[in-house]
């Protein structure tokens, strides 16, 4: 495999909450390759967004390191942002309601490519995200656009920087179902044409399956399983991945025997006082004694797969 553009190695983030600490992300390791899309899936509160914001350097990691082009990033994030851009979940909140589309794009172009022909570049960007005819959109205020159009403007603004990595923090979850597919296709096109490395954060396995190459599953602040998407979805190694896949509607469900009691699935644990050992053990039907006391190490498996589960370690 080629060298990853952006990499997180053993990254943790603890937030102080009064006297206690919230263990939002612990020991997360992730690599983004050019031209590949990694999906980060997990339920609400599993630390997906925190990880995205760590990668966007909104706050520093408590421990671990983030590497861009193999070098540990530190200091002011100014240069970093020429390579890494984040797409927010909420297209209504990530555009200043007082600025026209033109202003947003022009600023991004001027800041990163001061010598470029700004008007031409802005028009190119709008065409890139299929906001055509350009004249119809360029002088609009955000409140005059639909959710999907705004998200396209947000993507165009990120592209103006000409980044190498695009972090999408649930970029389609607040859009109408009818335009989600177009958005996924747009992201896919950017990956193929520009060779962008994309992190696609979602809780929707179906869209992850449609778009990505690799899947990484998070549970309660920890990464529990990862690998090529078809393998992970067809044959989940970690019981939680199995639960996650089973709980998304799929007409072609394999006739794998039900591992979980659908009536009693349990709740994700508190991140202030997470369970000892494997975080999933209180809900896991296959939990063993060792799961209650020791956190499972990373088990590498053939085909680029890995998991944190004692079941696989024992195998």
């Amino acid at each position, binding site marked *: 495999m080629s060298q990853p553009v952006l990499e997180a190695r053993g990254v943790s983030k603890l937030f102080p909450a009064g006297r206690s600490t919230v263990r939002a992300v612990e020991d997360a390791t992730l690599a983004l390759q050019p031209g590949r899309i990694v999906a980060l899936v997990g339920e609400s509160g599993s630390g997906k967004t925190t990880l995205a914001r760590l990668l*966007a350097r*909104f706050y520093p990691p408590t421990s671990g390191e983030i590497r861009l082009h193999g070098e540990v990033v530190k200091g002011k994030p*100014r240069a970093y*942002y*020429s390579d890494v*851009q*984040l797409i*927010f979940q*909420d297209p209504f*909140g*990530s*555009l*200043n*309601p*007082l600025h026209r589309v033109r202003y*947003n794009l022009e*600023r*991004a172009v001027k*800041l*990163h490519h001061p010598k470029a022909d700004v008007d031409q570049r802005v028009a190119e960007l709008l065409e890139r995200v299929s906001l055509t005819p350009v004249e119809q959109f360029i002088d609009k*205020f955000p*409140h005059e656009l639909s959710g999907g159009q705004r998200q396209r403007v*947000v993507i165009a*603004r*990120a592209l*103006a*920087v000409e980044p190498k990595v695009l972090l999408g923090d649930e970029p389609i979850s607040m859009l109408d179902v009818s335009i989600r597919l177009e958005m996924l296709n747009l992201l896919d096109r950017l990956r193929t044409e520009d060779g962008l490395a994309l992190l696609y954060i979602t809780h929707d396995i179906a869209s992850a399956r449609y778009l990505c190459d690799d899947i990484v599953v998070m549970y309660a602040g920890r990464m529990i399983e990862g690998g090529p998407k078809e393998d992970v979805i067809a044959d989940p190694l970690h019981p939680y991945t199995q639960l996650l896949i089973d709980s998304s509607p799929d007409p072609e469900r394999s006739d794998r025997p039900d591992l979980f009691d659908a009536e009693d699935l349990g709740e994700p644990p508190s991140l202030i006082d997470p369970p000892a050992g494997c975080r999933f053990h209180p809900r896991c039907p296959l939990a063993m004694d060792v799961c209650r006391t020791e956190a499972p190490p990373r088990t590498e498996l053939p085909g680029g797969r890995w998991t944190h589960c004692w079941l696989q370690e024992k195998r």
Partner: protein
Amino acid sequence: MIMLRSWKVRIGLSILGFFILLAVLGPLIGGDPRANDISSISQPPSAHHLFGTTQFGQDVLAQTIAGARGSMLVGILAAAIGTLIAILVGVPAGYFGGAVDNGLNFLTNLFLVMPVLPLILIVAGYVQGTGPFVIALIIGLFGWSGGARTLRAQSLSLSSRDFVLAMRMVGEPHRRLIFFEILPHLTGWISAMFLHGMIGGVMAEAGLAFLGITDSGSISWGTMIQAAQQQSAVLRGLWWWFVPPGLCIALIGTAATLVNFGVDEVSNPKLRQARRSVIVRTRKVVSA
């Protein structure tokens, strides 16, 4: 200008414009406010003295016109100083947070708990020759803390909004984030603060003059009311002496409030009313 579409703004601005014009052109149109007409003392309004005369035979109209200059000057200057300090202290405090916030917030709290009126009395008593400039400076310097508090709270919440984070990611420097992303969202607050500060300045000036702090030689609406009070104008029924300056102060307050409605509509497009032509056209389409 979108603002001018609203009738409230038009009325408010015309009143304010009228008084500003009066303040600027006052000396040209009004007579000598200090001239004593011995032949008419404490006379009610008449053809010769449209607003009547004072105890000393001075023309009330001429005094009201001359007073506009002193009062408006103090009001606008005090509001400008107060608002400027509030912006410079409040917005960076909310935006940067941390140590900057702690320092600036401490300063704000210090001014917030200061007993302003006694302090103004002391400073005004200490500074010799309390003309309108000094009075405006004092009112402005001691009246910004509440506004800074408000702006800090607003920019605190604005600076963590997604669009600010997004523009920071695009690479905007702090200066531009503060002045182009955050500050435009505060125009409603700032103009409200300015207009409020202006009314406050005019009133404070009147209050200080009433208490006898202001240099009694200068003419403003405040000194007029003070003179009327000293000569027991209320008891003696000389209403034409104190009603015009009082009414002027009230009018300025009303005008400032009306303008503020319009500014609110600019900073919050959802409050905007549709243009009459649009409404008429829509009605036609609906009824057809």
